């Protein structure tokens, strides 16, 4: 683990991960023909096929009701599929939580326990796994350090700003040193400045630690900026329509946001979204 601020050396070739290098990486998630129908008859997801490989940063992008959060929750084991199958590290869900196969989830809201201090909140996953001792304290320190909250361990969540609460929530996800990080529109409720800052921070952490991240968002810019691959989804019924590889080197910075390539990718992704939504309307008529 490294600390944000210590940007990995760009000269270091291992720091630059392109999606081409990922092609042979080992699969983390394999979803096959996943359907999800809720009890009230809503078809949240239809025939979703998705592979997530080790070290990828994949964004699920789409309008409300396209099933992106549903798909993410299925990946987290928070809901069963109606038909189809999902594999984690090529095995059943039972394998999740074992060493090297840890999973963490960051919710749309910070979802902190208001009665516990930031440190207590970050400690929670370790407590639940009955992990304690000095090594545990060190992990908490590290996690707080990574998100820049070292001085706020003794604060209560209400004393923090929205962005800081989200950082605490991320620290809680990081404390177990997860291999797969699932994030459900984590920065959706934040202002643009905070969101950009957290985008950069999460990219930096991802690169430094070799995690796999699946990131749900409805922002085209955020998806293109962060991801090695964008999965475009459409609504009614929720489905995957296209996967667009963002073949740009990491680390990415502010200059990428204003580059010609960024604009071009955004245009392509937007077009794909547009096409998907009109297709959906035709189908539903």
């Amino acid at each position, binding site marked *: 683990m490294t600390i944000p601020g210590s940007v990995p050396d760009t000269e270091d070739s291992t720091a630059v991960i392109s999606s081409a290098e990922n092609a042979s990486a080992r699969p983390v998630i394999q979803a096959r023909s996943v359907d999800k129908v809720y009890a009230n008859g809503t078809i949240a997801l239809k025939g979703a096929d998705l592979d997530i490989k080790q070290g990828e940063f994949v964004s699920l992008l789409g309008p409300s009701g396209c099933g992106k959060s549903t798909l993410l929750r299925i990946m987290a084991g928070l809901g069963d599929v109606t038909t189809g199958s999902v594999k984690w590290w090529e095995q059943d869900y039972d394998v999740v939580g074992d060493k090297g196969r840890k999973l963490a989830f960051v919710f749309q809201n910070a*979802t902190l*326990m208001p*009665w516990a201090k930031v440190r207590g909140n970050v400690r929670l996953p370790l*407590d*639940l796994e009955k992990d304690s001792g000095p090594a545990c304290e060190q992990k908490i320190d590290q996690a707080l350090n990574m998100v820049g909250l070292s001085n706020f361990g003794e604060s209560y969540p209400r004393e923090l700003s929205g962005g800081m609460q989200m950082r605490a929530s991320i620290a809680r996800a990081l404390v177990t040193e997860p291999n797969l990080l699932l994030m459900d529109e984590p920065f959706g409720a934040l202002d643009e400045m905070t969101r950009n800052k957290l985008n950069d921070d999460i990219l930096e952490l991802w690169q430094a630690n070799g995690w796999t991240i699946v990131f749900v968002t409805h922002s085209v810019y955020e998806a293109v900026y962060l991801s090695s691959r964008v999965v475009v989804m459409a609504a009614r019924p929720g489905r995957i329509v296209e996967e667009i590889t963002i073949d740009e080197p990491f680390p990415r910075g502010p200059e990428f946001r204003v580059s010609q390539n960024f604009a071009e990718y955004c245009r392509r992704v937007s077009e794909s979204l547009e096409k998907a939504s009109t297709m959906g309307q035709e189908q539903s008529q």
Partner: protein
Amino acid sequence: MSNPLIKNEKFVQYAAPLFVGVLFMALWEITVRALDVAPYILPGPVAIFQALGENWESLLKALLVTLKVTFLAFFISVVLGVACSLLFIQSKWIEVSLFPYAILMQVTPIVAIAPLIIIWINDTTWALTVCAVIMAIFPVISNTTLGLRSVDPNLLNMFRMYRASRWQELTRLRIPGALPYFFGGLRISSGLALIGAVVAEFVAGTGGAKAGLAYMILQSSYNLQIPKMFAALFLITGTGILLFALMVWLSDLALRNWHESALKTEN
């Protein structure tokens, strides 16, 4: 208006209602004297405090009897009520099957069943306590159950994702989250325990060594000792206010770090 005391929030909080009380009593006394109302119809505050002083010993004894029943009933209500809530959240089936009976207890007028309970239970203190418990337990059950159920579903998901045991889920998530509701229940329940104790005593009409404040009121009214009756009434309401204040204090103590109800917000 530059008096620093006026600006002191704490001072105003206590001084303002006290001022209203003193003003009210002064007006009361003046009216009673001006209209020359007979003390057995409406005594003035001075006469009431005189009666309080004269009958101090017997009133204090009666107060202790009532307090004993109140606290016993309140304690049992809290323990039993929380136990019921914990049982209810174990399964929807248990809650659905039993909750209507908790409501039944709440809507049955205590005055109507107190005579029965007094016949069934020989020991007066326990008979009165049971009546008071029937009155006081419902807010504890309903509030605590609601609190234990009102968990942030995402936090619950997270607990399940980290494979938390049911015990961990209860102690680390449900119970802390239910505390504000629980204390809300206590505030209502403490008052009801007192009312239940007094009402049951009215029905029981226990005299002698076990006579409580309700019996004092009954006796005084028979004997037309109206100031003494008011003095007993004053003690009952005073006790109720103190109980409520105690609950507020406890609640603030437990929640002051995180819950909105115990926090001061500035705009």
